């Protein structure tokens, strides 16, 4: 049976697990790097020709920053905030996976949500333009190219789904660490 974070205790466990893991400088660095890479992937994937031109020196590379939420104008406040949140959760998720695998010598079970989150986050980043190439391309695989015009939030729905996937992933990872210790601290104080 799939475990869902339906109780307050589940959310406290997620928070405590994340706090304990990110309390280690190495894993905090992993989270920051992963979040930055995720955000960069989200925004640059929407403009690959421009990114290539910037990297090739045809245009100043520094203006790639103008594609990021709250730096340039590509994203509205809501989309920008959701993309940042998705990126942060990707960072936390990756750090938890790294800790889980490295310190507990366990499999990465429960981390599939991070991959789903990254994919959905990339689709959600398509909100920077109408008729995003990547969004249209993915939907066309399912014969639903015009579907995005039926979405009331113009595609932001995908980024919101990414949030759900990442929260579930973090929940499952935290659940998998229940009963263990992180840097000497018990993960679940109720046990």
């Amino acid at each position, binding site marked *: 049976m799939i475990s869902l974070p339906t109780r307050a205790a589940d959310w406290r466990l997620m928070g405590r697990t994340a706090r304990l893991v990110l309390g280690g400088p190495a894993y905090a660095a992993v989270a920051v790097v992963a979040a930055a890479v995720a955000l960069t992937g989200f925004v640059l994937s929407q403009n690959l*020709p421009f990114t290539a031109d910037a990297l090739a020196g*045809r245009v100043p590379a520094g203006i790639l920053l*103008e594609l990021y939420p709250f730096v340039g104008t590509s994203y509205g406040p809501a989309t920008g905030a959701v993309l940042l949140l998705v990126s942060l959760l990707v960072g936390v998720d990756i750090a938890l996976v790294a800790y889980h695998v490295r310190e507990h010598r366990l499999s990465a079970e429960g981390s599939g949500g991070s991959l789903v989150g990254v994919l959905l986050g990339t689709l959600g980043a398509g909100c920077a*333009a*109408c008729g995003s*190439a*990547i969004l249209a391309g993915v939907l*066309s695989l399912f014969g639903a190219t*015009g579907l995005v015009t039926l979405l009331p939030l113009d595609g932001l729905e995908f980024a919101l789904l990414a949030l759900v996937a990442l929260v579930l992933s973090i929940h499952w990872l935290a659940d998998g660490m229940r009963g263990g210790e992180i840097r000497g601290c018990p993960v679940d104080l109720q046990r």
Partner: protein
Amino acid sequence: MTDDPTGRTTRRTVLAGGVSMLGAGCLGSGGGGDGDEDGGSGDTPTLADHPVGGDLDDQPRLGPDPGTAAGTIVAFEDPSCPRCAAFEAQTVPKIRSELVDPGDASYVVRTAPLVYAWGEPAIHALEATHARDADAFWALLAHYFDEQDALDTGNVLDRTETFLRGETAVDGAAVVADAESGASGAAVRTDVDAAEAADVSGTPTVFLFRDGEYRTRVTGSVSFELVRQSLGL
């Protein structure tokens, strides 16, 4: 594909097919355009031989004739696209005041029906309006962006006629008649062909040329700074 607005599904389907192929290409190759036509590392195309550079004299434009100023900005927009509305509200006013008005760049708008269904009759009306009065074109385009939430396929031409009659000297009824009959279809088709040839898959997509040579392309409601710095102005 047909120029008749009643055939909007057909035209949209063809364009969407191009969109889909590009999208798959983006996912598969990390491309987004085949690169050659946009320059890449080979010969840099000029405004004259780039797919978006054709028929520019017949397009709505602001500032110097395209290719005569240091910068030329060619933007593909859909009047039903919310991010185009954001681009028009946040970026285009600065393009006008800081690049176009001083004569440093020309700004050209081309249309692509990519988003909501009402965008296509709106584009036909825009072309019919431009054929009569360039200033009225810009006013109508701004009106569409301002009223996006209130427009749909059932009311867009009625509201177009009302706006043109009340706010411009253009004969709104004649414009709507042209839009409904497909009389402006050739102009619409020219832009759709240019969009397909240039692999335009989302709007707004902005093509930037410096001193008549292709510089880069960027999709989304990008900032003025991005446009200005990309052009080196």
